[in-house]
């Protein structure tokens, strides 16, 4: 089959590889009908995530049709149309049973790697480095889905692929980021990053009752899309973010701040340049300009919610400000399985149409150029869909 393989920093190639097969009883094989490139794929593309191996098949946002199921999968059959959550979870461990699906104890074959790095292991992920399990991803024609009896969700025929594909990651991720803000009536939520996750966080915060949502970015097209979703846009190149947020909140600061950017933050302030230098000289791994600003701007007793990916060590975290204001931090990989059904309901009921975020559609064969385009934020690219 054809699959997009990681061949090193800024080098991905569509190659012919073996078809996947059922390995374990709880596996299913899915023929992919639609897949997408995620902003977090760009961290792999840019070489920020350790333990990638050349030839790894990428992609963790995908959906398709069940081709075959293992003996342990009773709830799916050949021909079922499913979306597949990007986190892989067993459904039976302490964490799965407490809805902490991305902390699953039993789905990462390389648990020891993550244990060495983080103290404990998280769940396996599709196409997201060997530390996260090394599972082949879904930017391909077929994919093997482990624990298919608890992960994939059947989708109704009347909904097109494009309406439900984002249930596989970015919609739940944006939604959990907003849910983590514990939004109360009258709240203001400020969201850094108006990429796909930021866009869904904006709309989710609105759905969860935020009175005012603010979106901070510097790409006009993204800010325009944010405004269409009901957010007040701030272009950080034109305005002082802290002052503007204070203006918008009567000097109180946002009740919650969401960092939907993560470890590759851009910025033009001295601390952002400092991060770039340190990362470029291998003295630090993650650039956290956004996180610093979110902590700085958040109101006293507020919440900083982090759906943006961090992988390594952070330098100059303003812990004093966080402590001094008594902030709450919420973060982590999305507990996908918890959100699939309720968010599918939102889509089905027409409360949100996720198609708004799509800017580019291409064939899987064009994946390499689409990665380059998305990474370079060229052609006003926000979200790329690929068809095998």
């Amino acid at each position, binding site marked *: 089959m054809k699959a997009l393989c990681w061949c090193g920093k800024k080098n991905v190639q569509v190659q012919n590889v073996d078809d996947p097969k059922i390995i374990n009883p709880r596996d299913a094989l899915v023929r992919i009908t639609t897949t997408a490139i995620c902003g977090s794929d760009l961290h792999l593309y840019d070489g920020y995530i350790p333990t990638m191996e050349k030839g790894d098949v990428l992609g963790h946002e995908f959906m398709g049709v069940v081709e075959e199921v293992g003996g342990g999968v009773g709830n799916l059959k050949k021909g079922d149309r499913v979306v597949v959550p990007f986190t892989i979870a067993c459904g*039976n461990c302490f964490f799965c049973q407490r809805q902490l699906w991305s902390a699953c104890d039993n789905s990462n074959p390389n648990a020891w790697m993550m244990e060495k790095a983080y103290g404990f292991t998280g769940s396996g992920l599709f196409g997201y480095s060997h530390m996260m399990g090394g599972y082949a991803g879904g930017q391909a024609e077929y994919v093997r889905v482990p624990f298919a009896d608890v992960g994939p969700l059947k989708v109704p025929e009347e909904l097109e692929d494009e309406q439900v594909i984002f249930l596989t990651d970015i919609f739940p991720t944006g939604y959990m980021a907003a849910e983590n803000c514990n939004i109360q009536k009258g709240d203001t939520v400020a969201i850094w990053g108006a990429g796909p996750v930021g866009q869904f966080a904006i709309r989710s915060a609105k759905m969860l009752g935020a009175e005012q949502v603010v979106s901070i970015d510097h790409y006009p097209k993204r800010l325009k899309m944010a405004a269409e979703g009901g957010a007040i846009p701030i272009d950080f190149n034109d305005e002082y973010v802290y002052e503007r947020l204070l203006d918008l909140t009567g000097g109180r600061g946002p009740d919650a701040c969401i960092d939907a950017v993560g470890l590759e933050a851009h910025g033009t302030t001295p601390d952002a340049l400092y991060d770039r230098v340190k990362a470029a000289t291998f003295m630090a791994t993650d650039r956290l300009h956004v996180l610093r600003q979110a902590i700085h701007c958040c109101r006293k007793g507020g919440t900083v919610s982090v759906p943006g990916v961090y992988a390594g060590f952070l330098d100059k975290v303003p812990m004093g400000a966080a402590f001094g204001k008594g902030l709450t931090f919420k973060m982590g990989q999305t507990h996908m399985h918890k959100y699939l059904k309720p968010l599918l309901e939102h889509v089905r009921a027409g409360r949100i149409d996720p198609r708004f975020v799509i800017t580019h559609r291409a064939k899987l064969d064009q994946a390499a150029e689409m990665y380059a385009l998305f990474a370079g934020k060229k052609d006003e690219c926000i979200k790329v869909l690929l068809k095998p």
Partner: protein
Amino acid sequence: MTSWFSGILPNDELHAPLEHLPRRHRQKNVGALERTISVLAGGLLVGEGLKRLSLPGLAAAAVGAHLVRRGATGHCGMYHALNVTSVEEDSKLLSHPLHQHIRVHKVMTVNKPAGEVYAFWRDLENLPRFMQHLERVSVTGEKTSHWVARGPRERVVEWDAELVEDKPGEVISWKSVGGSQVPNAGEVRFKGLSEGRGTEVHVLLMYDPPAGVLGALYARLFGAEPGQQVKEDLRRFKQLMEAGELPTIEGQPQGQC
């Protein structure tokens, strides 16, 4: 609670309930005879070293001071790193003059009731499903079994074992009998947790490394670290019990770059 560990573990450790196990990083792991030798040799080195006011002399004194400390405290950092101990032990396990053996203790929580977890382990023929180095275990009698394992460099090692203690839902322990090439023993304790939080599985494995401490050092340097091995075995046990299968990526497609 009596068990075959009488004489193997220090008394306080043997009779303490699990939660009172001594903190592992400072546990005594040097036996009485070796401690005496360590203190005497160390003292001699300090004395002789300090007599010569030279760099090698000072170095010898430093080494001597370390030996004295090791003897006095009964804790050796190198032994700890290698999971080696030479505290007094069951005479049947001895094969080295200073009685060193590998001793690994690991714990993992399994999200199943103690009875179920015990029952899976008690069927000894299940062990090769999660203990990677075991090829097969055959039950040969009410209390006896025959074990076949792959040692370093794919060498096949076989031995007979007998159950020492067996309390449903609580403990299983066993030891090798007869002239095993690798004398070994093991104990697994099950501690059911409240509020349906599953079962703590405490595993203690001991064996005489085929080539003594040097063999253990060799194994450690070349990748077969016994502590990590036991941990991975326990992890596979947990995965089988909870998920019903072992997660794997073996056999999945991979590109050629």
